[in-house]
């Protein structure tokens, strides 16, 4: 877990030295080391089957949708506006898509209408948080509960909606070699997000807004626009995730996505993000964090150990990660 264990090769000459040190002590490195540790534990405990094609497929399809959601949500965290409503947004998206398909609409039409609705709810988050200045956690917590209520309303009376579309099911369950297509798409999106964050002006603006919004304002960046956009993006990502769940499962339930917000954000915090301050974190760290959690729960699954141990490990990792973040220079709470 500790970043120091990677041993920065300080003998490298020239301008690269500081950069290497930053990489060696950075959040992505410590989470990468953690992932290696998980893989080593998996291989030594379960054996070579841990990395067998079928197990990789299982882990990949399990983690694909959360990773895709994380790629979108990462911008909101970076901009300093955590969006807790994504869990219910995923559920709402699943239920609305399934309800429309059940009502005889074509899959693509249902998906488009759902995405529009998700963006509308994202805009409500944006209006409350950015325009009115509501506390982000409290406001999006309200949206989390309200949208879960909408899930219940959409899925009544039975609590679940069947929406099987053969083509969509085939697509969402397709694999390239051992890797599910959705997992590959999620990886591509993470890569795109990482490039935007580290290599483009837009990414620097988002980081600046999250790091210090007043300084960003003075630098001529529209804090309002960046944060509003980030909240829309996170709603959109959750919407896409919910639709893909309908494809994967062939149905939606009023419980779809329950607790997903905590799983995704816990994994992202383990990967170096902070839900309390913006400007820190890298989408690659988020992806690695999700793989650490997915790998851990897979190991416990295969060994038939109670899944509750996963939550205990995730909770401890979360506390360790925020402690590490503080030691790395994060805000200390007193």
């Amino acid at each position: 877990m500790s970043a120091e264990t990677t041993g920065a090769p300080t003998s490298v000459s020239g301008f690269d030295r500081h950069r290497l040190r930053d990489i060696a002590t950075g959040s992505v490195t410590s989470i990468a080391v953690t992932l290696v540790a998980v893989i080593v534990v998996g291989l030594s405990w379960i054996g070579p089957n841990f990395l067998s094609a079928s197990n990789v497929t299982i882990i990949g399809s399990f983690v694909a949708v959360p990773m895709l959601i994380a790629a979108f949500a990462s911008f909101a965290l970076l901009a300093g506006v955590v969006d807790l409503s994504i869990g219910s947004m995923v559920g709402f998206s699943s239920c609305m898509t399934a309800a429309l398909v059940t009502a005889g609409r074509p899959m693509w039409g249902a998906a488009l209408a759902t995405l529009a609705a998700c963006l509308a709810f994202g805009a409500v988050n944006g209006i409350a948080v950015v325009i009115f200045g509501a506390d982000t956690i409290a406001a999006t917590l309200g949206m989390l509960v309200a949208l879960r209520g909408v899930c219940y309303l959409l899925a009544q009376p039975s609590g679940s909606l069947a929406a099987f579309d053969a083509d969509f099911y085939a697509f969402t369950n397709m694999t390239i070699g051992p890797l599910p297509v959705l997992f590959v798409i999620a990886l591509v999106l993470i890569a795109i997000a990482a490039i935007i964050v580290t290599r483009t002006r837009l990414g620097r603006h988002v980081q600046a807004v999250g790091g210090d919004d007043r300084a960003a304002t003075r630098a001529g960046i529209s804090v309002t626009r960046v944060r509003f956009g980030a909240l829309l993006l996170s709603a959109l990502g959750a919407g896409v995730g919910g639709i893909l769940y309908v494809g994967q499962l062939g149905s939606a339930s009023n419980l779809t996505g329950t607790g997903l917000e905590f799983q995704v954000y816990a994994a992202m915090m383990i990967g170096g993000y902070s839900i309390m301050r913006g400007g820190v974190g890298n989408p690659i760290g988020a992806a690695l964090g999700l793989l650490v959690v997915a790998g851990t729960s897979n190991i416990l699954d295969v060994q038939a150990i109670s899944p509750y141990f996963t939550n205990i490990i995730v909770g401890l990792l979360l506390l360790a990660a925020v402690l590490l973040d503080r030691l790395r220079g994060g805000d200390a709470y007193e």
Partner: protein
Amino acid sequence: MTDVASSSGAMEGGRGHFLANLPSGWGTVASVAGAWIVLIIASGLHRADFLSHQTLLAITFTMAIVGVLAVAQALIGISGGILDLSQPTALVLSASVVAWLLERGVPLPVVIVAGILVGAAWGLLNALIIVFGKLNPIIVTLGTNFIGQAVMFLVFQTAQAPINSDLVAFGRGYFLGLPNIWWPMAILVLLVGYFLPRTRYGLRAIAVGGNRLAAQARGISLKKTRFIVFSASGAVVGLAAILFASSNGPFSPTAGSTFQLPVIASVILAGVSLSGGRGSIWMILLSVAFLSTVPTSLVFFGLSSNWQAVFQGAILVVAVAIDGWRARRTLR
């Protein structure tokens, strides 16, 4: 109830510099009371039988546990601890200890003390991690809630206070036409609301929440205050757990999570700032009464209970939006 809350606003507005940054308490009181009265009148006009003793019982029954938990949450908020997201775990943990002890024939007074102590110990545990790790309370309590619920599931799937115990008899009883469990809540709100701005530790908690650097400069120990506030808040959750065990059937380790949102919403509606330093405990009586009326009203309007979450969530979004707007205007 409105009178109590209004006088609290007036009282605190007039107090010394510690409370000088309180918002106009009257505005909060008037808007929540107004919304509540509109809700009652609308429901009463729609269905005259809404205005019945049965409705009053339903509302006060809902108020009891939410109200006690809201006091605990408000203590955290006022002292600058932001939010305690591990309340659901503390509630069920204490309640299950209470149930376990009662099953073994331990006398009720001992059980009550034990329940409160378990809650306080949980709060202390959170405070230890927060203070020594210098970590944000929201994340710490998010983590301990995660861990706590998982550990509880490893130990038990459901728990329940023995049906023939004195505690359950108390939980089902009535006093002066209101549920027994309502009274401890009301007394707690009145006592905490009275003593918080009048005692040394209360004033310290408010000072730390208002401006921790200024409080530190005045010689107030931040660490000590955090330990005291989190333990006290935990003890209050322990009290809620006793009421919970007395009035509920079998409960699972996740049973506490249904209270999370109404509690946070009522604390914010009561005008407690999540950034600390301001808030009236007495206002909680009003905000909890308002939020507890919503589910009953929905039933009378013929809406399914599924609408409850939609309304509660929407009320929270609107409340924090107004809170944010007000805070922004004060800054200007």
